[in-house]
């Protein structure tokens, strides 16, 4: 089983992959509409907004939390420092 290199989500079935392409190492939530992988800044922005909307964190804390979560993923280990 694959795990998304960008967000850590387990990818068990084709609908977890961008455009159903199971050869990809990143998941549908980390892809742009055309199936390419989002940049770190795009993913950071999206994750921050998601945390604010669904958990109500303070904007700055949400951004720090998103950064901490992403920085532990293989795709962003070096980018996020």
């Amino acid at each position, binding site marked *: 089983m694959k795990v998304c290199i960008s967000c*850590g*989500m*387990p990818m*068990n*079935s084709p609908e977890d992959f961008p455009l159903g392409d199971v050869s990809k190492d990143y998941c549908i939530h980390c892809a742009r509409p055309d199936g390419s992988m989002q940049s770190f800044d795009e993913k950071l922005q999206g*994750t921050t907004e*998601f*945390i*604010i*909307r*669904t*958990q*109500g964190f303070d904007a700055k804390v949400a951004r720090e*939390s998103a950064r*901490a*979560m992403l920085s*532990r993923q293989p795709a962003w280990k070096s980018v996020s420092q």
Partner: protein
Amino acid sequence: MKRSIRQIQKDETREKLLSAAHIVFGQKGIMAARMSDIAEAAGVSHGTVFVHFKTQETLVAAVIDDFGIRMGQRTHDMARNSGSLRDVLKAHLEGIREDEAFYTQLVIETRSLPPIARETMISIQSAVSFHINQAAQREMDAGVIKPMSMALLFNTWIGLVHYYLTNRDLFSPEKSVIETCGSMLIDHFMHMISSAN
């Protein structure tokens, strides 16, 4: 690459220590547990623990990290098999139930633990909130539940669950509080947010 027998044994000991620590942390508290308690539970010498984990903090971080990965997988599996919000809440409680003692301890101690504890807690909550949000949005759009802030819906649910977990001694001193009160909490929560009141 093939692992040597020595490496396999080393990995097995590490696994044994992680699962022993997980249990001991749940029983005694994460900060309160001593390395010697964990060595004893794993059936290894005190020195062996330090071969694998130089400090208690490294061990705590490894156990929490391990737990976060497991909860992530569990949360993802639950989403696959749940349609309604009620199903998602039920699956959420079942996921906690499997590691209730450790999860509860993590909730109680998060703020006094190394930063990884808070990060792991936030990433578990984010995965759970993702699935709750999806199901709740569908039911909100369909008029089954009242329109309300997604964050408040989620935080109300988490607040309720964590209150019962961290006060288990009051609600269910003898056994799992999820087992004793879980379905009551789901019924109450669904009743509160339902449009049909």
